């Protein structure tokens, strides 16, 4: 049995691992099989992470996080958690390969998942012109006209990035004010290849084997228009990834995990949350990293407070690392 298991491998998960490992908690980090590294793996230049005055590539930053966590003894598993039993003194974490790991504490840092438009044709044309990842798919829209839907930082970043390939990038936003930071807005507004379409929502995506156009509805007068594009990049935000803990952890009305005050403590003793999964507001790499620190320190504090016999079960050697399902 472990002292702590960390679920998630974004800035929150890896920072929690760095702190937990340095506190000799011998952490096991479940990184996911295909999304290891989290959201920043799909970004390019990260210019607002302190310590990198010239900026750093998102995947390079995450490789550095991982290396730092491993340097202090974090063990990393590239698999997905399929179920969690969080109640009781000993928490059980079941993985896709069938392994079951046990721990006295769990730090839940699963981040968030892209929000979908919720249109019928979205799923059908996903991968055929509808995309959630400009850095992955932008390359295929060389000299094409495409659209980005959304008004936040990620929409501005995607639109700006896509101008490297596309002839024209429309940014469709449902209101007339953008949520994006001033820097990101200005960069997009000044880009001659980007055209903003305000007060419109995407109601239809047209095309058989590939996207050919969009049906837009005006949010002020309800009028309908069409827009000919061969790609649609969806950047309308993300929802906390909490399906593994429904029925166990308390969830706020906004979908984030409920924690006590400024701590990372959930409603179950020994279970802590960190990063975007509990943050409805800031959602930055650096705030997630800070949140991971809080969770590791809270876990350390909790482990110091539990009966010595219980703690001894997680620190006694030798212990089998895993028990089969």
């Amino acid at each position, binding site marked *: 049995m472990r002292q702590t298991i960390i679920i998630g491998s974004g800035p929150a998960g890896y920072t929690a691992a760095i702190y937990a490992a340095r506190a000799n908690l011998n952490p096991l980090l479940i990184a996911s099989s*295909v999304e290891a590294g989290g959201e920043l793996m799909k970004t390019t230049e990260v210019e607002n992470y302190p310590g990198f005055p010239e900026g750093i590539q998102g995947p390079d930053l995450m490789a550095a996080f991982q290396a730092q966590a491993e340097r202090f003894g974090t063990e990393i598993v590239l698999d997905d958690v399929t179920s969690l039993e969080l109640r009781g003194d000993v928490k059980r974490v079941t993985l896709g390969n069938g392994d079951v790991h046990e721990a006295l504490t769990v730090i839940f840092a699963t981040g968030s998942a892209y929000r979908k438009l919720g249109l019928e044709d979205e799923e059908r044309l996903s*991968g055929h012109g509808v995309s959630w990842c400009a*850095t992955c798919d932008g390359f295929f829209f060389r000299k094409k006209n495409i659209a980005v839907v959304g008004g936040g930082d990620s929409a501005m970043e995607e639109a700006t990035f896509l101008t490297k390939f596309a002839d024209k990038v429309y940014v469709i936003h449902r209101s007339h004010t953008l949520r994006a930071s001033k820097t990101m807005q200005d960069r997009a507004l000044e880009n001659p290849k980007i055209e903003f379409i305000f007060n419109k929502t995407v109601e239809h995506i047209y095309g058989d084997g590939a996207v050919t156009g969009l049906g837009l509805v005006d949010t002020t007068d309800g009028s309908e228009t069409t827009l000919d594009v061969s790609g649609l990049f969806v950047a309308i935000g993300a929802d906390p990834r909490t399906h593994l803990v429904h029925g166990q952890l308390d969830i706020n009305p906004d979908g984030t995990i409920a924690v006590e005050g400024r701590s990372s403590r959930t409603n179950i003793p020994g279970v802590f949350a960190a990063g975007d999964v509990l943050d409805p507001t800031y959602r930055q790499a650096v705030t997630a990293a800070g949140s991971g620190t809080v969770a590791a320190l809270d876990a350390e504090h909790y482990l110091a407070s539990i009966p010595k016999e219980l703690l001894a079960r997680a620190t006694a050697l030798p212990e089998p690392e895993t028990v089969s399902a």
Partner: protein
Amino acid sequence: MSTAKDVTDASFQADVLDSDKLVLVDFWAEWCGPCRAVSPILDQIAAEHADKIQLVKVNVDDNMEIAAKYQITSIPAMKLFKGGEVVKSVIGAKPKPALEADFAEWLK
């Protein structure tokens, strides 16, 4: 690094379309994070079913003709070819059990 053969615009006909085996083609690029994530999983699946399928890779940066021909607009894209025809397409990085389920019909 993957040990799968790199197939190009020039060799696609011989290596994939004319092959008498089932060929799983992984369309990928250096700059695609999810491609890097799914690559070792495809290697594992191919190794575990070496008698059934052969895995090859197409770098879309270097081989835009083939990528365009198969209308690739999102990677990773995995296409399974049998007798020169696509019999199954999967888009996006997925965990191993999900990919095994996608290709189950051809792996048994």
